[in-house]
């Protein structure tokens, strides 16, 4: 879970080669709550991440979010072809008898959903930034990415949110 990512990120920080294939390097290997925040991603204050690569953006929920949720037992995803809007809900994750909305950080058209999550919702816990991705979107307004948080801002946001509650 978070420990595996932490170990890998610590190895990176110490310049020790990792057996795993090259991954996005974490900006901060240790946050106050042991959640990982990765470089190269943008973040929403509702704890979703977005990775923009060319024409397609991949979206999921952050390590901080999955850690607070606990074991995810069910994931509700939209149909490909549907539209999402920035800040609007596109699906839900269920854990501990509580189902929570997941919101899209950007607007666009859903081009692909991660069907593996139907049978393995726990991928969101074990690999929130990689195998636990939720939807891929063709952004309709790439400038929306500018309004999102970078890794440092998001980490600070999480710390402040945790401290306040």
């Amino acid at each position, binding site marked *: 879970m978070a420990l595996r990512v932490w170990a890998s990120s610590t190895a990176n920080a110490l310049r020790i080669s990792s057996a795993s294939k090259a991954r996005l390097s974490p900006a901060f290997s240790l946050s106050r*709550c042991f959640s990982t925040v990765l470089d190269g991603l943008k973040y929403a204050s509702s704890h979703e991440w977005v990775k923009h690569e060319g024409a397609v953006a991949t979206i999921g929920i952050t390590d901080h979010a999955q850690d*607070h949720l606990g074991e995810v037992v069910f994931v509700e995803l939209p149909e490909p072809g549907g539209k999402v809007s920035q800040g609007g809900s596109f699906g*839900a994750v269920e854990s501990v008898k*509580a189902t*929570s*909305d997941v919101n899209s950080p950007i607007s666009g058209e859903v081009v692909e959903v991660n069907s593996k999550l139907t049978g393995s919702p726990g991928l969101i816990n074990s690999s929130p930034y990689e195998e636990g991705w939720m939807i891929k979107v063709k952004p309709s307004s790439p400038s929306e990415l500018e309004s999102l948080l970078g890794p440092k801002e998001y980490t600070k946001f999480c710390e402040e949110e945790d401290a306040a*509650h």
Partner: protein
Amino acid sequence: MVLVASHFLISMPACPPRKHSNKPYRSHSRTPSSKLNQLSLSNERPRACECFDLYKDLVPYGEAWSWQKRIVMDKKASIEKNQDCPDTLIILQHHPVYTLGTGSSEEYLNFDIKNAPYDVYRTERGGEVTYHGPGQLVMYPIINLRNHRMDLHWYLRALEEVVIRVLSSTFSIEASRLDGFTGVWVGDKKVAAIAIRVSQWVTYHGLALNVTTDLTPFHSIVPCGIRNRQVGSIKGLLGEFQPSTGCEIHDRQLIDITHASLIEEFSDVFQLAIHYKTIPMLDFAETTPTQNLLVTRKDLLVTRKDRVFFDPLFLLIIFLHYTYLDFII
């Protein structure tokens, strides 16, 4: 016609001695403390919570569900505009109905869903199948967790705490949590089921406490997907623990007592000041759920009790107004 009955206090029969605690909820979960900070006792005035109190009414599930969603939308709109809004609590009973959560499995239904004994609704809450019906008090807190704790685990534990305190302070029944099984248990009997939906930190759905519920409909399902455990009710437990002493409480009194205790403990646990509100009729109009959310529908006789016209206290006041009081004024 505005429902005014809810403004009048209902006199309570004598209850067993109350060991009421006026404390907010401090979580003692084993979740890492960085995630569950202790709630400090606040000296600030409690936040306001508007309460729509329909605890004597059997409200069609579809209506209550639509109503909740409208309230959630309103709150989210206020939050978007950075406007404060009070929390909301709805308390009511339902006609017999089964409800499923987003990921609920139909394997926990012991009947063909196309030939169900009661309406079946697939909702957006968490959890598996459950039953709602007369004699069961249902609470739908629609609260902004940003004003409490942005922690779903804390919220679920707090809802459990409300019921645990009710059972302890009002009935001297020792109830507990069961790790991994959200809800409130007395021994191996679940007396209260809890499941919620959260949208941008605004909660809805909530808890259902069996008071005088006929538990037979639970036999047609695997309640909450938990096999090998039972469902209980306050009435059943009181009957077990205190066989007839010749001084029995009637079902209606039991509902009254439990209702009063639920409101009080909810107010304490969440540190909310309860303000009773009347229900605008527009908010209560029946809407037919879309076909894919209502799995089956039975033609139920809708027994919408109009408390205004049949509440004896209201009739008395009207009578006095037009006769005695007018005369002396």
